[in-house]
């Protein structure tokens, strides 16, 4: 690491009123896991992809794990197949010795793999064929978050990469992502699970104990409501699943710990909008609570004015005058646009200021809005350069 990079690494932790700058290149050269999080629709996937491209072209062996990229961005990265395996991205400048693999998470397949790893073949078969598994594996709240972390754990364990960049699922509540391992654990420890597993352990002590509190009546009521067949499927499923609880929880906890280890850093992504920044705030606080390391906030798609020398009010006044006189409709329109742009920039800066006053120690990196959507490598390089230029402040 260069001296400059080392200095940049320190800057993010400096206390006080000092200018908060982040040297993104130093982060990309140093860390081994970068997790991009934030609410949906703020450009999280693009940010993750841009960081990965930049890191690879700086000479690192990088994998980027994305969840749900826009179709054309996926194509640009060669992600045409959803097969849960990282694939080499073509068109990366590998002259510095780096390379980039990309993969799209297949939630169900990852879940299937976890089952296969933790249960013997016969049980695995029973679980995979159960209708409840079909429902659970594709829609259990938190499955996607958990599976993203599971995949990260797998990639990390394989040891093929210097850096793994993770794009998190677009959950409305970004916190779901940190809660996933605990939620899964809590679910698997739940009282209902115990009750339902009991009959399958017929003869065991648990069965007798549960029976004594009137579980017979309870299940018969349930059977009446949902149907006996459903209850039987459920009981078999839960019993099969129970055999792999231990392994499940261990994995969830190990991945959670991985996120806290040195070498991991989080980047919170937001757009300059009220809701997105509110979620970013929660996330920043939550990361601090969990002692997870934060590089900073990426404020995506900001619209600074390109002509700061001309005020909005002056611009509008002249536009009105020109409209009245009919002298130059083009100029009047351009000036009206400028006035709107200044108003927009002011709103965005106000939202940013609100965030920074609540989180004075979190560096903010602004990324300029692109006129068109980013869907090729050169667009990603531009975003990466904009991040590295550190329009921080």
């Amino acid at each position: 690491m260069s001296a400059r990079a080392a200095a940049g690494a320190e800057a993010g932790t400096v206390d006080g009123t000092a200018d908060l700058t982040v040297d993104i290149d130093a982060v990309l050269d140093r860390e081994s896991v970068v997790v991009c999080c934030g609410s949906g629709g703020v450009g999280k996937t693009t940010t993750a992809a841009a960081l990965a491209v930049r890191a690879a072209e700086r000479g690192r062996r990088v994998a980027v794990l994305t969840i749900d990229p826009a179709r054309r961005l996926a194509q640009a990265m060669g992600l045409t197949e959803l097969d849960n395996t990282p694939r080499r991205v073509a068109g990366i400048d590998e002259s510095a010795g780096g390379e980039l693999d990309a993969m799209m998470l297949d939630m169900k397949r990852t879940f299937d793999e976890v089952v296969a790893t933790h249960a013997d073949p016969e049980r695995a078969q029973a679980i995979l064929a159960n209708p409840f598994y079909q429902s659970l594996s594709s829609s259990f709240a938190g499955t996607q978050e958990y599976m993203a972390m599971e995949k990260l754990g797998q990639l990390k364990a394989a040891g093929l990469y210097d850096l793994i960049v993770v794009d998190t699922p677009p959950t409305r509540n970004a916190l779901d992502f940190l809660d996933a391992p605990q939620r899964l654990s809590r679910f698997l420890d739940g009282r209902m699970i115990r009750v339902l597993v009991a009959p399958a352990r017929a003869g065991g002590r648990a069965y007798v104990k549960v029976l004594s509190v009137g579980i017979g009546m309870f299940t018969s009521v349930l059977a009446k409501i949902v149907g006996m067949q459903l209850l039987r499927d459920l009981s078999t499923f839960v019993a099969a699943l129970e055999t792999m609880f231990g392994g499940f929880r261990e994995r969830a906890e190990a991945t959670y710990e991985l996120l806290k280890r040195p070498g991991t850093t989080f980047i919170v992504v937001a757009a300059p909008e009220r809701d997105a920044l509110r979620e970013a705030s929660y996330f920043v606080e939550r990361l601090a609570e969990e002692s997870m390391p934060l590089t900073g906030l990426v404020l995506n798609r900001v619209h600074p004015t390109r002509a700061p020398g001309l005020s909005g009010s002056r611009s509008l006044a002249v536009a009105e005058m020109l409209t009245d006189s009919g002298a130059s409709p083009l100029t009047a329109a351009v000036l009206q646009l400028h006035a709107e742009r200044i108003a927009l920039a002011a709103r965005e800066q106000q939202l940013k200021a609100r965030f920074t006053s609540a989180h004075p120690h979190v560096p903010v990196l602004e990324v300029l809005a692109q006129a068109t959507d980013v869907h090729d490598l050169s667009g990603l390089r531009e975003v990466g350069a904009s991040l590295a230029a550190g329009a921080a402040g």
Partner: protein
Amino acid sequence: MSDFPGVRLHVVSGKGGTGKTTVAAALALALAGGGRRVLLAEVEGRQGIAQLFDCPPLGYDEREVAVAPHGGDVLAMAVEPEQALLEYLDMFYKLGRAGRALKKMGAIDFATTIAPGIADVLVTGKIKEAVIRREGGRPAYDAVVMDAPPTGRIARFLNVNSEVVGLARMGPIHSQAQSVMTLLASAHTAVHLVTLLEEMPVQETVDAVGQLTKAGLPVGAVIVNMTREPILPADALVAVAEGRLDTAELRRGLRAGGLPKSPSIEEGLVAEAVDHAQRVALEETERDELARVDRPTYELPLLEGGVDLGGLYRLAGALAAQGVR
């Protein structure tokens, strides 16, 4: 909606961030106009409707939240699977106490976690009950508007039949799912999709139309939210988007307006105009993409500074002006 005669249930979906709750609320207000009674139902426990109407959090009871222009009432409620299940049990099994016991066991939490499809049946079942309910010899509501889950989940959410068919091949849950499906797939229902003129939301809208059609669910309108009028003259837009702005004309105009000569300001203004024209061009591409799904389309303007109650009435007015009634 005039484009949807006979529709009693309006389901509003859209990608996160497109403003589907706002649009659902505006649609309910527009439909209530002229003395009708409309129920606006939220199904994801987010309390977005209460925030919009600036009222206390909604519960399972149907409560008046707004009066429509020229008379008419909008009532609102938050449908929640747990309450729906208890009500359902009470109605069909007189299971008052046993129902509460189930709740205490965590059975309901459990059921909705392990099989979200079952929660969906309960929620849509409650909506169906409101649609067919009669009071004093006529329907209790002229229309029901559902603020539904986002487009990524909408086809699965509504296609309750296939969601539970693997889980419950017979029995009461199964029959409930079938009767709900009958309403959802009928001409009394329309699923409207809210979008923005941006790549991802449009892509999701097109995908959702395909999924809904495949599931036999009736696609209603495409509602384009937060639209902005292009400010540059139409004849200049294409050239400017390609970076060919008539700078001589701009300079003349700035001089005529009494602004001092400044190359940096001129360059900045040109750059801003190009940004704008390129965005308008991109929006046009997305509009063409939407036209391909061939559904009635409504447009709602962007309200600067966010949506408040006044803004909601403006949006309802815009829908009414485009023929929603």
